[in-house]
């Protein structure tokens, strides 16, 4: 981690956050941090609470215990629509693009968080990273393939010029080649500082079941088991951790 963390406060900090779906506790006192410019991954099995954790950041469900800080500001009790204007953008589970609207309209909706006065990244910038979206810009988003929809969801999130990009299982349901493409893209976006007018020092918080690839591109990782953080370490350490290997990487110890 090094210099950056010791100098400044973390970009995102969860302190003992719990949340519930009705009476069911989905998250139990989770603490974690993401620093500016980092790629942090959260791995865990189906139902471990990964998506719930991302949605809890946006107050849906609302944290029942603990505190969520973004750039030092307490966002635990903010209404959902006030979160993304602060600089968080979510590529949610299942992509949740608007199928009845065109690709271009979907992208334009990503700009909402910036309001009328702030300029987002240019379409040209997005289209150089996602050339396929340019070809399809007048098409209904529902007609895109799974991989294209994933690209659209990422492009929509980038439109808000996020300081923290949150990705929920971007590899789910995609062909291996498409997965490689998306991971390469995430890495290149961070390495280039998500440039061209986008925020410098953008951080990525990547939630994945596909632990191997996620840990390879991540600076740090957390392992979520039954709503609690079981392990944490650098991507490299976790890749070589026997418990992680056994449970998530399918390798016999």
């Amino acid at each position: 981690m090094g210099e950056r963390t010791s100098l400044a406060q973390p970009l995102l900090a969860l302190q003992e956050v719990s949340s519930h779906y009705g009476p069911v506790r989905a998250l139990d006192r989770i603490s974690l941090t993401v620093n500016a410019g980092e790629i942090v991954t959260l791995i865990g099995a189906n139902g471990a609470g990964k998506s719930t954790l991302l949605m809890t950041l946006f107050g849906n469900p609302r944290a029942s215990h603990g505190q969520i800080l973004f750039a030092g500001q307490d966002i635990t009790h903010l209404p959902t629509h006030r979160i993304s204007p602060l600089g968080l953008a979510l590529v949610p589970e299942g992509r949740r693009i608007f199928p009845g609207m065109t690709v271009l309209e979907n992208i334009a909706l990503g700009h909402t968080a910036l309001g009328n006065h702030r300029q987002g990244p240019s379409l040209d910038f997005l289209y150089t990273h996602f050339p396929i979206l340019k070809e399809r810009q007048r098409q209904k988003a529902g007609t895109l393939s799974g991989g294209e929809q994933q690209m659209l969801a990422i492009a929509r999130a980038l439109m808000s010029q996020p300081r923290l990009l949150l990705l929920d299982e971007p590899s789910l349901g995609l062909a291996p080649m498409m997965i490689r493409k998306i991971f390469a893209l995430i890495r290149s976006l961070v390495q280039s500082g998500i440039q061209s007018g986008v925020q410098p020092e953008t951080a990525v918080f990547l939630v994945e079941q596909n632990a191997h690839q996620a840990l390879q591109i991540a600076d740090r990782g957390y392992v979520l088991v039954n709503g609690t953080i079981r392990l944490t370490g650098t991507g490299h350490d976790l890749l070589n951790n026997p418990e992680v290997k056994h449970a998530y990487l399918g390798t016999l110890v």
Partner: protein
Amino acid sequence: MELAILAQQTLNGLILGATYGLIAIGYTMVYGIIGMINFAHGEIYMVSAYVTAIFLAVLHYFGLANVPLMLLAVLLATMFVTALYGWFLERIAYRPLRGSTRLAPLITAIGLSLILQNYVRLSQGARSQGIPSLLQGSFAITLGNDERLVQITYVQTLIIIVAFLSMAILTVIMHHTSLGRACRATEQDRIMASLLGIDTDRIIATVFVIGAAMAAIAGVLVTLNYGSFDFHIGFVTGIKAFTAAVLGGIGSLPGAMLGGLVLGLSESFFSGFVNADYKDVFAFSLLVLVLIFRPSGFLGHPQVVKV
């Protein structure tokens, strides 16, 4: 002559259908965005008839004699006041129930409908009210051999122009402005819309305001045309407009307009060629038939269960 009757009934049907369509927009947009049938919407239309009369009286009192200016002022003022009613209903009656069972807002809507009717009855009296006719005169469209084809009054002309113009403006707003985009996004996926920074509560309130304003346009036009109204007119007209919305495919904006026109035209043809007493029977039979063969209406999408 048969052709003349056909032409006249087509015209009457278009006028009736345009007003159904305007009111149906409120049902369909509210359903689209929160999945609820706002059964108080017919009363919003009824209220707008009273507001029209009140504004006409006020303008008359202040001595405004210019008829076109007066009509424009009454239209805009009535839209504004009626929209406030729509906004207020959503704020006090529906928003607190968001996230409760589906039946709660439905029952509330029926209750609101009764409250509005009785509020108007108590404050304005139970007797039928009227306004003097402001626009008199008509055009006659004739065939080559001087035979009269249709008779269309100035008020009817106004209804057709204003109704279609307002539908066109609304369509442009919904498809080419950021407000319209936010409305459609909220309709398709409310949670995702709020994740993107859209204040979905405000959008839902806006939809109620738009629906009430469109019903107010219908209220002003119908009041100018018929001249009389009472506290009860919202019921049948509301049910008819709701039928139009279902016919066109509830949730679909062009569907509401199309459903209104189809319903208006079929009622008008049935009255003209078969029997005027049974026009409502015919209208609802049509609804039943369409729903048997196309359960989601003309332009509706089949319900897809979201996982």
